């Protein structure tokens, strides 16, 4: 069962670009990425689009579909009305390279700023013992496929390039939370660093990131809010404040 659908695709580069209308076949059961590939194979052979797995597992085909950050491989064509024109544009928070492909290097720079897992020094490989319930909290965040849709939608940086320098974004707040909740991680000041160095305080909990997450990770409720609450606890607890000054060391305990 095949029908014609109307697509409006943004084409251009860092300098200029415009929306172009195309009409293309769509078959039963197809997703937006299938239709974009058909456009590429039959009408626009040089149409730039990132994709890899086509199964929602790699997070490559992130784009904005009718203005919403989505994975093109997980957006089914039958979710649109028959005569609807589907508008496909590149992620707005990142600089365009070409057509639907953006420069997401911001995210890789931020990844470099997050201190890595600090392995326990007294345990050899094979000696790690952790309970399933204790690893599950971090495992939720490790489901992240790095599609960066949460970064794209977050209004701290979506239209505020100037905030990028001091704001790691939801993807990296769950990275920090994941390490903070790791039963065997040795670094003890991750929440404070999130607040002081990675811009946790700039988040005003609108939950937009959670809404767009294709893995349904509860970014706000399970990572950002608990970290914010505990940062406040530590900051205003005078005995812990004094303790941290007396011990005179940061980080490793």
């Amino acid at each position, binding site marked *: 069962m095949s029908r014609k659908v109307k697509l409006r695709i943004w084409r251009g*580069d860092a300098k200029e670009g415009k929306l172009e209308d195309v009409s293309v076949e769509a*078959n*039963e*059961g*197809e*997703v937006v*990425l*299938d239709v974009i590939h058909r456009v*590429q*194979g*039959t009408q626009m*052979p*040089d*149409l*730039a*689009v*990132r*994709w*890899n*797995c*086509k*199964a*929602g*597992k*790699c*997070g*490559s085909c992130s784009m904005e579909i009718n203005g919403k950050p989505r994975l093109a491989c*997980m957006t*089914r064509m039958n979710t649109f009305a028959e005569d609807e024109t589907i508008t496909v544009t590149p992620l707005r928070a990142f600089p365009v*390279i*070409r*057509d639907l*492909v953006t420069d*997401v290097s911001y995210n*890789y720079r931020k*990844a*470099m700023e997050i*201190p*890595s*897992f600090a*392995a326990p020094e007294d345990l050899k*490989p*094979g000696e*790690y*013992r*952790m*309970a*399933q319930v204790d*690893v599950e909290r*971090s*495992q939720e965040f*490790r*489901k*992240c*496929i*790095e599609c960066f849709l949460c970064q794209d939608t977050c209004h701290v940086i979506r239209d505020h390039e100037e905030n990028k320098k001091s704001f790691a974004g939801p993807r990296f707040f769950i990275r920090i939370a994941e*390490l903070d909740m*790791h039963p065997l*991680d040795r670094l003890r000041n991750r929440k404070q660093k999130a607040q002081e160095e990675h811009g946790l305080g700039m988040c005003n909990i609108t939950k937009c990131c959670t809404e767009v997450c294709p893995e349904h990770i509860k970014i706000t409720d399970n990572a950002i809010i608990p970290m914010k609450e505990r940062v406040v606890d530590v900051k205003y607890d005078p005995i812990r404040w004094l303790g941290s000054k007396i011990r005179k060391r940061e980080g490793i305990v």
Partner: protein
Amino acid sequence: MNNDIKFSRYNFDVVVIGAGGAGLRAAVEARQAGLRVAIICKSLFGKAHTVMAEGGAAAAMGNVNDNDGWKVHFRDTMRGGKFLNNWRMAELHAKESPDRIWELETWGALFDRTKDGRISQRNFGGHEYPRLAHVGDRTGLELIRTMQQKIVSMQQSDAKEHGDAEKYLKVFAELTITEILKDGEKVSGCYGYWRESGDEVLFEAPAVVLATGGIGKSFKITSNSWEGTGDGHALALKAGSALVDMEFVQFHPTGMVWPPSVRGILVTESVRGDGGVLTNSEGKRFMFNYIPEVFKDKYADNEAEADRWYKDQENNRRPPELLPRDEVARAINSEVKAGRGSPRGGVYLDVSKRLPADEIKRRLPSMWHQFKELADVDITEQPMEVGPTCHYVMGGVKVDPDTAAAYQVPGLFAAGEVAGGMHGSNRLGGNSLSDLLVFGRRAGAGAAEYVKKLASNRPAVSDKEIARAHSHLNEPFTRDGNENPYALHDELQNVTQDLVGIIRNEKELSDALEKLESIRKRAAQVKASGGRAFNPGFHLALDLENMLLVSESIARSALARQESRGGHTRDDYPKMDANWRTINHLSKWSGKQVEIDPAKSSMLPTELIEVFEMDELKKYYTEAELAKGGN
């Protein structure tokens, strides 16, 4: 002479092509040996096909059943591969995979746990004991993310120590390598282009590790992502090395069959490991009819016993749904051909009757998600429709088992799916993730040792080599012609799917070779339209050459092997023949076509012969071999 060729130049000790599990593990090892390492990924960092591995990584840690050990794992691997495996690779793999898994925990990996807090292990086809370390059904993502984060942590240390995060370990994302460069016999570097800009790049490096993964995109129905175009296989062939046993291609028994856009996408074997059963349109569990003679004593021949096995594995034989993948794929193929398939040409896979809904969602979260969102099927209530999909190539670059050094090209190494030998004629599920850790590490170490031995005697990149690479890379723009790369790719996929697929014969394979030849001629007329910047038509034009080489290699090897074994089934030679076990097929590139060179495969050494019962060995080895005894 190169004044008019514009390219950027980098110099490293080791260049790793491919940023999946094997490539990243190789890079970690080479950097830890003190070398300067470049990692090249065709996609963004962290997107390689390893992310799609679902079930787990096989390692005989014995956490769930302490009868397990490396010898049992070795035995299962050889059985699964129908004894065509390179035994030394299978031995190293079985011995070293537990250490490779434990090491990942020290880098931050969080596997699912047993009750006593150790790494949990699950059942899988062909493995005698629960053996697969896993994280739900997204184990590959955990592996790749852990190693990606390990790379970042090493870069952070370098930044602290040397003031530069990328001087010693640099990731080149969205860059494709099109040529291995040589100085005489030895590797001197490699050449390619940035996908983003189309700009050309030269890497001067005495050691290159191929870790480019598989070839699935040569087939129409595949679980592979677009990257699986056999780049490393083709680079090795053209550099003068050899591919071993390319006829063996694994068709995973359970890919999605509907909707058409996701046809081929993997449905993890864990569904069967966790109790899923296969039924045909008559509602029968057909796998009981397909237990081959060699496996009769290990697999239950009735439903009652098969069902009891999930509770009591000591006293019951395994359900036949857990036979090695080649057996299950052929069985499904036969059922569909016999008219007992589902309406959309597959069979049914049902886990909903075995496990409560919550348990299914916990153990198989991404399967639940994938079917719910893409097929409107709730697997906690309904069966899935599944059918075979091209999943993995057992064949690959012929390597030295201990160092991963590629055959006949000093300085070239290969690990992971692109390397051949380890899995023989059929790979067991779970052995891929452990393979890429074990041999990724060995390739990194092998490359490091090679570079250190060279000392200052490094091969040089000549202007002539640069000119050759530059000219080849630009052909899609410079040549005359009007062939569309997308249409040609489609045709290639139809040829391999229809004529070099699960069931093969002489006529169809010969036919395939003729058609491939004509596609090759037309591929020389492919013209890329548009500019150089992020132009997928240009990228595909170059990838197409690799897929053609790989397809030819598979078809020629398949035509030469006149028997059926593992991932190679001939309906004109339906039996396995011990005389053929003594032969490995080497594919070599003559400059015009792929040529097949039969080579003698080696006999097990005495201490490994003792792992098996003589009765079993008699099914696989010739009388002459067994009379002579071990090596």
